[in-house]
């Protein structure tokens, strides 16, 4: 299985963060559904990468986005929680872990259904974390549930789009 280069990951992170802070976070369909495309970066890190490194990268990415939004801690904390859950999630969708030593998760390597599950639970984890953290200063249960569900679906859709766009280019 082919590995992605470090340069590719750096480029991916920069592009995704800029897209996220410039366009995506201003979308908020119906005022509730926000697509968190930068999760795609955390999702695509190699399976064999140690959880510590994944969490460190997620923390840096989250903090960078926080810097743009004046929300110190919100995105950093949610990203770290998502990164922490990445290993259990991958184990959940992988059948034979031994075969996947060097690979990175994709539709091609995991199969469509497992990747869908992986993308959905990752999106859900992040959306739940980010909106629960934000709701500490503003509590509105109905809007919280609505935001988490719609953002999960929207994020999943945009991550799948990214997956297919980037696959065709290679």
């Amino acid at each position, binding site marked *: 299985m082919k590995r992605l280069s470090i340069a590719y990951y750096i480029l991916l992170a920069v592009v995704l963060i800029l897209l996220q802070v410039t366009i995506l976070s201003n979308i908020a369909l119906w005022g509730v559904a926000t697509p968190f495309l930068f999760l795609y970066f955390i999702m695509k890190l190699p399976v064999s990468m140690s959880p510590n490194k994944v969490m460190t990268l997620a923390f840096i990415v989250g903090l960078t986005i926080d*810097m743009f939004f004046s929300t110190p*801690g919100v995105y950093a*904390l949610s990203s770290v929680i998502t990164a922490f859950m990445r290993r259990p999630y991958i184990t959940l969708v992988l059948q034979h872990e031994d075969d996947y030593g060097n690979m990175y998760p994709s539709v091609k390597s995991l199969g469509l259904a497992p990747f869908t599950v992986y993308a959905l639970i990752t999106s859900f984890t992040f959306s739940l974390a980010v909106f629960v953290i934000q709701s500490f200063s503003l509590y509105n249960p109905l809007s919280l549930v609505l935001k988490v569900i719609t953002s999960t679906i929207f994020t999943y859709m945009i991550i799948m789009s990214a997956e297919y766009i980037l696959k065709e280019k290679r």
Partner: protein
Amino acid sequence: MRRLIEFIIAHSSIFVFVIYVTISIILLLRFNPYQESIFFNSANSIAGKYYSVINNISGYVGLREINNELQQNNTELELQVAQLKAELQQLKSENNIEEFLQGELSKTRLFGVARPVNVTTVNANNYITLDKGSTHGVKEGMGVINRSGVVGIISTVSDNYSLVISILNPKLRLSCKLKGSDYFGSLTWEGDSPEYAKLEELPRHVNFNKGDTIVTSGYSSVFPEGIMIGVVEEASRQKNDNFNALKVKLSTDYFRLGDVCIIENIDREEQNSLMVK
């Protein structure tokens, strides 16, 4: 001891997780928009520069509409000036009111015009970043308005940028009143829609109609009396039955903010020093 180290290595990911979570929570809890925490907000120079560039590009999109609106406003203002001039002339001849008026008006002055380089509307706490900072003389606590009404209050200032707490932020409470009456309440944002806010603590016996204008009360040291905030959309009883809570449609459109004006109250420090005593 060796066992302890082995244990830590075996479960290192949990320790790393706890460390990052702790750092994040410290950041989360320590951040207070009134403190000078320049680095972690969008008034810092990297994010500010980036937003300036993006804003230069996206600023062109709404120009035509803004231009139209400005022209309309301009005409209205010209008419008003003409009318006011006539009235002033009349008053001048009646009383020696000129001196009094000048004293009253000069307490608040227009500090300058700034351009928002980043506006958020969908977060729980919304801020606006402006392209003027301490090198231009902007100070914390100055008011920000635009042609349609109140926008927010400046909370943090860096060298070239400043951060505004917008009305769409539950941390901001504005004292305002029904235009034409002296009853006042306080306006807060409820976090659901960027178009509406809530006016609380208005005494129950005050009469009002849908469409009535809400303006600043002048009881705060930031805004002078009578700056437009919005119109009454509907009323609802508050939990405490002695007060009304009004749903207010904000006159400022945060999705199309355009240039904003920073205003300064010359007597602010004097007013605030009284409060401290």
